């Protein structure tokens, strides 16, 4: 075994231990408000990474992510709420019988939310993925909105525009970050596999990919469905974080927030999505002060709601103008790069995942 390979293994192990330690202390010492922000960051990491699979790696300009989140959030909420609170919340029209008495534990419900969202992704992808570029964007945007409108109107299932409350709350960092890390690992494995290269080939040159024997439509559908699965997962987690869902949460503007993350992080870089996901979510909270009245050396600026978005818009403008590739471009975090910087000798090696 190569010594460098061993060093990399040790480093990975160390990193896992370190993140466990960080999670442990964060869980123990941070205020519940801060934990909440970190949990939200984990959700945005999942969203960013999964949307990057579709947009960045497969090159499909799809804007339906919020719609799949919506599906996931509702599935998990309906499955986990207690029959008693369902009776209380559905006061306009009662929930249909088979759903009234289901009471699943949280974990399988979240996974189920992903599965149902993936199913919707498959259904929507089947007709929509015959389109390309901006046509696909318009179609998926439309489908995302259709999902939201269906949710608003199927009152006996979703309670319509009143939304759902009293969803079992999850507070633990371990669960959110556990899901986030699992997502990143699965997506990393997929992207580095033969299928991942097929996705990238489709992004680079669809005609050539087809001529090399790749079933373009099947691969696009696979990528889209996997993306929808993780969007559903993230939606479910979102529901458990804020313990209530309603259809207006998942307007298409939400999709643009995820788009902001992946463009900042770099289209085609999981590492970029992770970093940008955390940075954007955390700074979104800490920039709240700009919306408060500010006393600047005697000059009093009244609080303007929405100032945070102005800052992010400016940031995005800067990135597009001066740093088009985003933070990471298509590069990924890897130990080789760090070891090279540290001057650890490298032996000629080349491998495939």
């Amino acid at each position, binding site marked *: 075994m190569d010594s460098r390979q061993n060093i990399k293994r040790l480093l990975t192990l160390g990193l896992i231990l370190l993140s466990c330690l960080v999670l442990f202390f964060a869980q123990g010492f941070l205020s519940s408000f801060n934990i909440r922000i970190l949990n939200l960051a984990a959700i945005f990491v999942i969203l960013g990474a999964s949307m990057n699979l579709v947009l960045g790696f497969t090159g499909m300009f799809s804007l339906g992510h919020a719609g799949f989140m919506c599906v996931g959030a509702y599935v998990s909420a309906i499955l986990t709420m207690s029959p008693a609170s369902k009776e209380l919340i559905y006061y306009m029209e009662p929930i249909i019988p088979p759903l009234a008495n289901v009471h699943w534990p949280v974990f399988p419900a979240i996974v189920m939310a992903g599965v149902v969202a993936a199913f919707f992704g498959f259904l929507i992808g089947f007709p929509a993925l015959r389109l390309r570029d901006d046509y696909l964007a318009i179609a998926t945007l439309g489908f995302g909105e259709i999902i939201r409108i269906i949710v608003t109107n199927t009152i006996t299932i979703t309670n319509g525009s009143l939304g759902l409350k009293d969803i079992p709350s999850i507070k633990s960092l371990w669960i959110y970050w556990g899901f986030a890390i699992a997502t990143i690992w699965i997506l990393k494995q997929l992207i580095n596999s*033969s299928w991942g290269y097929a996705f990238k080939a489709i992004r680079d040159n669809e*005609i050539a990919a087809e001529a090399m*024997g790749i079933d373009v439509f099947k691969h696009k559908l696979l990528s889209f469905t996997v993306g929808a699965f993780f969007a559903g997962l993230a939606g479910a987690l979102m529901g458990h974080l804020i313990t209530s869902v309603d259809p207006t949460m998942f307007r298409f503007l939400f999709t643009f927030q995820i788009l902001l993350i992946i463009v900042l992080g770099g289209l085609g870089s999981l590492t970029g999505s992770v970093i940008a996901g955390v940075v954007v979510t955390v700074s979104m909270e800490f920039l709240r002060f700009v919306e408060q009245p500010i006393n600047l050396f005697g000059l009093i600026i009244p609080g303007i709601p929405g100032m945070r978005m102005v800052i992010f818009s400016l940031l995005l403008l800067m990135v597009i103008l001066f740093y088009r590739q985003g933070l990471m471009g298509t590069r990924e975090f890897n130990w080789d790069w760090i070891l090279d910087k540290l001057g650890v000798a490298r032996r000629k090696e080349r491998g495939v995942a």
Partner: protein
Amino acid sequence: MGNSLLVTDNITMQFGGLRAVSDLALQIAPRQIVGLIGPNGAGKTTAFNMITGVYKPTLGKISFDGKDITGLKPNQITELGIARTFQNIRLFSSMSVLENVLLSKHVRLKANPLEAILGLPRYSKARKRHYEECMELLDQVQLADLADEKATSLPYGKQRRLEIARALATQPQVILLDEPAAGMNPQESLELMEFIAKIREQFGLTVLMIEHHMEVVMGICEHIVVLDHGVTIAQGTPTEIQNNQQVIEAYLGAVDEIA
């Protein structure tokens, strides 16, 4: 006819009012090198696109190895064993030389994505074997030392060679080369000819090529088909074609127009 590998049975391609190719009839025997020539706009690339499934012929039938392949999708045709290169190079720009070639093995992979995610043996063994095959292939086309370079950073001639290597990696029986010598100087064209002859021997390939360089076509092809305005005006050996009055007119006519 009985032992032809690739047969096009009077295929016609009609784009609205334009008949790009009419009644093209090719019979290509195994391990033959066939040249498809003709002035610009004669319908050569359209013929390629029909054979490889990009277009479905308006009329006629294409059969490969006794099977009817008319109307199949490009990826299905590649899977059956017909690979191609492109006139304007279409390499995967974000990938390295090795990854470009490795991608062609995807179609030969017998595993599902779940096995890949979990790194199960069936997938990882196949992947390792493909990797070794690709390195060997790159070695044969003298690109092995550039395996980790970005494909689009290679010089033009090598990009052409990589395109051929990428097509070879799909393990084809027939390879369709669309102007492989385009933009090459005489020396490079000569090397390319040797290269094509070599891979034919090595992989037992049948080659159908479109080419404008007459030295290349006359030097390497055993059978030549001449198209003009979509119509087949001549078929035969290089000597027959060189002395064919219609062919001379088609080409000299083109020269007249330029002058």
